[in-house]
């Protein structure tokens, strides 16, 4: 580790083991077999006796005022048991798919058919489909008090001085698209009332937070609400409460007097459950002849939809000593943004990193050398200067040609790189551990495994601490009746939960030793943990053991071991039962990483094939190398999609989304996914840090820079579709 690293905070009692047995190894997901055989029950799979199916009544218009609504035919439709209208004449809707009611019917098909019997009359109002439409001086004022909102404004240093020191400047407008979360499991829940008590199976990233949300939204006591999420198919930041459908589901379930399942379909997902805002940046930046960045001046804007913000960090990571930036949120008639995997970072990274390659070309420097010259100083949470050369080695950076592949023929190769950072520090998780006299271990924690492998790494830490194997530990999570744990967002889960596992299992171990010490006839400090065993060290203060062992061998052994089962048997009928929680000294925050892309562009079709991504990423102490790597794979594929494929496309005249599916909302399939080479940098001295978000940040910029390196044309806008790429190639002089 770098010498600048501050002395790591160590937990005084339950520090991570110096030579771990399980931690840092490659353990497959303990619930993998359940998932691949379909035995894992996601919210979508929950079936309750007498359960009905709910659907939401939605606006088909982006901007409209309700004239009238008549649901009598729907109410009488076959199978319909409850119907709720939440809009009244005169009310306005501001985005397509806006929720205006809900119904529950005996079958999914009856519910969907009944929706179409609701007669709604609208005054359709002019809709804003793009930021350009919204920002026009003559634009209709759709939002109150205005279609735009001035966001953050910063200034540091002196811009005039900065540009005076510049030998070259680059000016351009950069942009990123709206990306939707597209979780494999859609949003939704099953709500079941028992009197005034509500049990909800919800696809959520926060079981405790969702309980609070149900109680607040329904005005019922939190004590009456239980939220369960045993298995969960992804949220990426978009699932932090009961959500609109949760409250509607609970209300129609109450009205129908039956449990109701209300899972959204793919179209509803795209329209209403969040997205990554678009980003635009009009930038002017300066670089000195020696390759030092001097100035950065940007006006930025973007849209988070109907009344939601769009800010992002800019410039990203590299040091521009003199800079100014103003941001404006632009509202349009579309579904609102939500936190999405490293909110803001991929946008800021893309704009900055593409600009960096352009600036490097102006001073005729290798883009990686140029980055090394302008990075913040090396620190444990800022390791880019070390990681860039590591990644360069793995992508064969020395084979890189200057901008524009000189090879004849339509296929052009190129390399690009970029950097990311994230926080990933969590706290606040609580847990409860029981050790039974039969040796069973149950750890309960009201966290959730949103598909990351949380359940697996929890079991690893507990097993490590108790000297057991992973399969000897039962992890119970995803239930708001379990001890509190915070929501899974901001890559904080591992850093919040693993210390709680370590401390709680450690306390359980201590309690076990205290309970069995009298029966073993030794002071508790002579008992320690082996592997599958409890070790009793024998000292002169332990006459019984001394006598026994001396009799056996004639020589005093230093210890004897008792099997875990035998040790636990001494507990009799009363288990060990202890509470524990996150404590300081076992986790940290501040991660850094770099990525490199190797791409192939067919300049006669505009098709980009990403050949390889190299990812060098740290995340503190690595608990499970395998699940940490899969977090990187997932993030990289999401970043690749952001670079090339994904884009929410709104019809410019109606603001209705034309691709609310997975057919025209393109996402990489198996054949589009490249070789992914993940290098995880282990920093055991820092403790656990989350890794969910950082790998998703840098991929798009690295791919865009590789495409620029391959083709010689600069694309300041993603996704880099065949359309955009061919148009830019034509502008640059045609392909043949």
């Amino acid at each position, binding site marked *: 580790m770098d010498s600048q690293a501050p002395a790591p905070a160590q937990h005084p009692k339950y520090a991570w083991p110096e030579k771990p047995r399980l931690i840092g190894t490659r353990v497959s997901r303990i619930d993998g077999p359940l998932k691949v055989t379909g035995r894992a029950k996601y919210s979508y799979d929950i079936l309750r006796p007498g359960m009905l199916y709910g659907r939401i009544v939605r606006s088909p218009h982006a901007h409209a005022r309700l004239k009238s609504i008549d649901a009598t035919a729907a109410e009488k439709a076959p199978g319909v048991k409850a119907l709720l209208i939440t809009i009244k004449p005169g009310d306005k809707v501001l985005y397509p798919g806006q929720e205006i009611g809900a119904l529950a019917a005996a079958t999914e098909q009856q519910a969907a058919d009944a929706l179409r019997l609701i007669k709604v009359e609208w005054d359709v109002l002019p809709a804003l489909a793009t930021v350009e439409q919204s920002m026009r001086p003559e634009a209709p004022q759709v939002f109150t008090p205005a279609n735009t909102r001035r966001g953050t404004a910063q200034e540091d240093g002196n811009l005039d001085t900065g540009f005076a020191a510049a030998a070259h400047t680059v000016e351009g407008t950069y942009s990123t698209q709206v990306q939707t979360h597209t979780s494999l499991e859609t949003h939704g829940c099953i709500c079941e009332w028992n009197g005034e008590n509500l049990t909800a199976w919800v696809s959520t990233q926060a079981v405790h937070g969702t309980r609070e949300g149900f109680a607040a939204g329904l005005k019922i006591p939190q004590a009456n609400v239980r939220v369960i999420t045993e298995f969960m198919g992804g949220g990426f930041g978009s699932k932090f409460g009961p959500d609109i459908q949760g409250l509607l589901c609970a209300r129609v379930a109450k009205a129908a007097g039956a449990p109701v399942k209300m899972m959204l379909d793919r179209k509803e997902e795209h329209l209403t459950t969040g997205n990554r805002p678009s980003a635009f940046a009009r930038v002017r930046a300066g670089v000195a002849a020696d390759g030092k960045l001097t100035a950065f001046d940007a006006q930025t804007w973007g849209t988070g939809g109907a009344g939601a913000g769009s800010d992002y960090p800019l410039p990203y990571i590299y040091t521009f000593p003199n800079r100014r930036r103003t941001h404006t949120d632009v509202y349009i008639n579309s579904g609102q943004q939500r936190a999405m995997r490293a909110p803001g970072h991929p946008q800021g990274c893309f704009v900055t990193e593409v600009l960096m390659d352009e600036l490097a070309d102006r001073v005729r420097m290798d883009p990686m050398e140029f980055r090394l010259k302008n990075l913040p100083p090396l620190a444990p949470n800022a390791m880019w200067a070390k990681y860039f050369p590591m990644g360069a080695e793995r992508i064969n950076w020395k084979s890189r040609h200057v901008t524009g592949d000189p090879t004849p023929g*339509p296929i052009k190769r190129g390399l690009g790189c970029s950097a990311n950072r994230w926080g990933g520090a969590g706290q606040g998780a609580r847990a409860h551990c029981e050790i039974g006299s039969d040796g069973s271990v149950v750890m309960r924690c009201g966290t959730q495994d949103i598909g990351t492998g949380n359940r697996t790494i929890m079991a690893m830490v507990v097993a490590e601490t108790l000297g057991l194997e992973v399969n000897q530990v039962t992890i119970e999570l995803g239930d708001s009746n379990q001890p509190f744990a915070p929501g899974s967002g901001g890559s904080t889960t591992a850093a919040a939960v693993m210390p709680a596992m370590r401390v709680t299992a450690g306390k359980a171990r201590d309690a076990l030793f205290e309970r069995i010490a009298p029966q073993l006839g030794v002071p508790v400090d002579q008992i320690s943990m082996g592997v599958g065993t409890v070790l009793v060290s024998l000292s002169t203060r332990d006459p019984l053991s001394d006598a026994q062992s001396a009799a056996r061998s004639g020589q005093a052994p230093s210890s004897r071991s008792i099997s875990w089962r035998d040790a636990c048997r001494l507990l009799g009928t009363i288990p060990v039962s202890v509470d524990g929680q996150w404590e300081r000294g076992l986790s940290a925050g501040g991660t850094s990483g770099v990525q490199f892309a190797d791409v192939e562009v067919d300049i006669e*079709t505009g*098709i980009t094939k990403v050949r390889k991504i190299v990812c060098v990423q740290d995340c503190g102490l690595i608990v499970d190398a395998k699940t940490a790597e899969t977090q990187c794979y997932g993030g990289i594929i999401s970043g690749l999609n952001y670079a090339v494929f994904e884009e929410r496309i*709104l019809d410019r*005249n*109606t603001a209705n989304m034309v691709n*609310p599916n997975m057919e025209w909302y393109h996402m990489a399939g198996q*054949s589009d996914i490249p070789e992914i080479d993940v290098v995880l940098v282990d920093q055991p001295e820092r403790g656990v840090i989350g890794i969910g978000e950082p790998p998703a940040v840098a991929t798009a910029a690295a791919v865009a820079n590789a495409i620029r390196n391959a083709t010689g044309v600069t694309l300041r806008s993603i996704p880099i579709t*065949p359309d955009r790429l061919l148009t830019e190639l*034509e502008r640059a002089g045609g392909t043949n």
Partner: protein
Amino acid sequence: MAGGMDLLGLMKDYIVSPDRIVSIKGLDQTIAGADSGIRIGAATKIADLADNVLVRKMYPALATAAESVGTPQIRNMGTVGGNIMQRPRCWYFRNEEFNCLKKGGSRCFAVEGENQFHAIFGDGPCHIVHPSSLAVPVIAYGGKFRVAGPNGSRDIDAGEFFQMPNTNLYGESVLQPNEIVTHVILPAPGQRSAGYEVRFKQSHDWPLAAASVNLVMSGQTVKSARLVMGAVAPVPWRSQAAERVLAGKTITEAIAVEAANAALASAKPMSGNAYKIRVAKTAVKRAVLRAAGVAWS
């Protein structure tokens, strides 16, 4: 319904809501040599077509098209007849919110809207691209569709089968509501033929443009050619201009480029799809070169 790959989607999207569905799983699902060509049952699974030895050997353009339809699941369920007769994938047509021309509405939303995947040929008023990948090589090979109806069976030239929107707005072919496609019949192919498809995604995507070429050769010289493009027009788009370029020539890259330019000379892109001209030119060029066995650079 046979595979249901298209019908179920149309029903889920409330584009059609049939009162009654008839099983047509009993249609012929065999592939057999017929005269010097081949006869393919309409209920043949696309996967079986793609794997068929005879097809792979004699009709490589058809094999290329078949093996790149949809996904393995779609190819395992979807049938040849269903692929030919599937409705357009236009996102305005498929979206319940847009009451487009084809659904009886008053306008084609693509004209002033989002048309990057729409037609670059045709005068409208609807600007779909025909969704069938298989129809493109079938026409290039001079195939016929055998159609059964109340008055028995008739064969329709595949090149005459599909209709432009200004002739038939609410359907895409001459097939009548009381008729059904039972077979695809292909005559003997030319000595050289090939197909080429350009896809944005390499997994599960529709072509941005495709081309099939069928060459009757005299030694190294093209005696006659059939060249058809897919995903560029409301019907599979045959280019006789390109065919004329190829006739009498020995295929070189320059000739292939000339044919591609001829094929796209009359293209009329919409506001957002001019790039498809370049993509389609590439598909034509590469199909011609692939057929002739010439590597492209």
